[in-house]
């Protein structure tokens, strides 16, 4: 009994070649599913780029409300180009609609913001 307890190299039953192959296949499938899910989740979630673009649009809007320059223009900030358009409003001549769209370097629309503002000189 004491001899059995002190046995240093116990024998291990090896897996068959079939078991190993099936296991490898399973691991491969599970990992590929996991990677697909991870890729999808990462791609679908809002990117930092979008959040940055929204923040920049809000900053430009705040500035535009203070200024009295209502000419359409394209502004380049960081990696974005922002198209800023002004339109008159039917409710009053003292109101103006500001439409802003942020595009990334590839020309893809990242964020959009619209607001009716009171002209600064009113």
């Amino acid at each position, binding site marked *: 009994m004491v001899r059995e307890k002190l046995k240093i190299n*116990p*024998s*291990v*039953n*090896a*897996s068959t070649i079939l*078991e*190993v192959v*099936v*296991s490898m296949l*399973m*691991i491969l499938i*599970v*990992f590929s*599913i*996991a990677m697909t*899910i*991870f890729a999808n*989740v990462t791609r*679908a*979630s*809002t990117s930092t780029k979008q959040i940055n673009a*929204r923040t920049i649009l809000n900053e430009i809007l705040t500035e535009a409300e203070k200024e009295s320059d209502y000419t359409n223009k394209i502004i380049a900030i960081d990696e974005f180009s922002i198209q800023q358009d002004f339109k008159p*409003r039917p*409710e*009053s001549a*003292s*109101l103006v*609609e500001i*439409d802003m769209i942020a595009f990334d370097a590839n020309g893809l629309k990242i964020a959009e*913001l*619209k*607001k*009716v*503002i*009171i002209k600064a000189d*009113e």
Partner: protein
Amino acid sequence: MLKASALYIVIIIALVIGLLCSSLIVVAYFYRLQDQYTLRQANLQNNLNSGINILTVAPIADYFIEKTFSLYGQDNDSVKLKVTPWGAYDIGLAKSFIQKDSLHASFILANPIDSSKWAALYIIDEDRPISISGKTAIRGDAYIPKAGVKEAYIDNKAYQGSKKLVSGNIRNSGRSLPLLNKERLNQIGQYFDISPRSVKLFKDSASASFFNETEIVQIDKNAAILSNTVLSGNIIVRCDTTLIIENTAHLENVIVVAKAIVVKSGFNGTCQLFAADSIAVESNCKLNYPSVLGVVRMKSSNNRPIAKLNVGENSVISGMLFNYEEGADRNKQPYIGLQRKVAIKGQIYSQGILELKSDVVITGSVFTSRFFYRSSFATYENYIIDATLDANGLSKYYVHSDLVPVVSKKKRVLQWLEKN
């Protein structure tokens, strides 16, 4: 003996990876949900602010009937806008919504002053000068009779103020006061004619949203006392006799309409009080901005007593005091009396007589036909003694009701009432 068990180990690893993946999906789902919610809230807030801007600038008459429309012709930019007259002011109601999500705001709209018409004093020209004595100070522009301003010695007091008498531009006043806004007066006059069928009897404290129908509360003639109550919001309190408002009553933005109103000493609140005969505010009361006290008679009658508005000692009123009587008899002119140490921040429009006791401070503007001063021995007309009229001391952000003839056509938000 140990077993290799490759398949078992793989299944356990697969389970662990599965758990990690599902938690990743759940986290991503909630993140996306929250992000969409934040974006939608930001859009709603933008649309709500756009609606508020429209109400501030566009002609308000266009919005007396609620309008629902799309701001930019898309499916996620709908707003509902409405303006409701509320005493001397207007209430703006704006609501933006995307499907079931919505944001709303209600606010009081008022007008900034028109600096070309604004003055510390406007007293009509009755071919006699205005006399000042004691520590009287007039700071700001003044519209006074052609006979001018002169120093006077009254009650053993000489004039002790600035040599300039009026520290501002002096202009000639007209034979009558600039008129109050008739449209607004008619709206206020309608409160006296609310049909008794549409009212309910007062029972307890109440609070009403401006997005709902106005609650009209009728106070019983036999117990015309408001005490130990809290009334706030879209509520009109009506009484056909003299209504006593105790200092235990707390009123917040409500309108009170009665034949006569007595505000008991120590009262503190924000309200618009309109009476047909008289308003008496006792001592040490505090009526906060934007409060309005008005004695209004839309129909003239010779049998009625003089329309009186009296403010007791040490009371502080931020807002507006006015009186109006259609076709007032020259011998029974409406009267406003301010007792000692009364402080008014805002505007006084007295169609008739304005009596100022000593140490009255008016930070804002006074429009009156005649001043009145009563000493122990005599009475004086068009004398101002120990009073301060300071048009420059009013905050530049102070906005007024469009009832008074000194405001511009622009609108500003005076106070936010409800917001989510």
